[in-house]
């Protein structure tokens, strides 16, 4: 497996981890009575700031992951893997790993900066696929 595909697989697994990190405290705080309902009404309890942040980090990674998956898929499909694209893929993965604690602890401006690094790494991979 190429480094790009390894990074993509790990990034997808990271999303499962992020789901668990969010689902466990969210269920404890909101109660399974709400989470397992059809959620027609707002919950009786509120989520803590930290849990809500982990939830937003989880939502945000969907966007990042889709773009990253396209970048890896396209590079893999056109056989344009290089040391550089492998490096960008790992930078993306590390950035998205760091993004979770940066958001959970509200590190400012680090969360935005880390997001931007992942964003740029994906952008460079897409551009590398074009040229």
């Amino acid at each position: 497996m190429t480094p790009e595909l390894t990074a993509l697989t790990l990034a997808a697994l990271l999303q499962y981890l992020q789901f668990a990190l969010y689902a466990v405290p969210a269920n404890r705080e909101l109660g399974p009575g709400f989470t397992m309902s059809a959620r027609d009404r707002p919950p009786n309890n509120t989520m803590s700031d930290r849990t809500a942040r982990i939830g937003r980090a989880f939502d945000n990674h969907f966007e990042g992951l889709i773009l990253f998956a396209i970048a890896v898929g396209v590079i893999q499909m056109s056989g344009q893997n290089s040391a550089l694209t492998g490096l960008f893929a790992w930078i993306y993965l590390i950035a998205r790993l760091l993004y979770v604690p940066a958001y959970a602890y509200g590190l400012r401006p680090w969360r935005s900066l880390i997001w931007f690094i992942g964003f740029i790494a994906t952008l460079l991979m897409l551009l590398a696929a074009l040229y």
Partner: protein
Amino acid sequence: MTEISILIAYGLLVMITILLQVLGVMTQISMGYVMSSRDDNRGTTGMAARIERAMNNSIVAMTLFAPAVLILEVLDKTNATTLLAAQVFMIARIIYLPVYALGVPAVRTLAWLAGFLATAVLYFQAL
């Protein structure tokens, strides 16, 4: 342009849309809010809010379009029809963004529909 290069171009369009959405929050609320952990949910209004909705819709379109293109490539089933469908998708989504940002009603829905149907054509061609 091949289907793959159209997919790359669409990925870049979505990234531009994401940056425009951030720019909207920055100008309407503040840079400080953008970089904060956003514990208080402060929504945007007007054009910034429309760009945000356009962004969310573009991401949904991307999750449907990207697998279709990659499947066609893996199966080596690209043809004149799939190229045309991918081009229609791309043009429709290029129109969709400014039309939504400016709040033009019917054209937006038509552009969305064109992109949606073009993606369906890709899946039928892959079968």
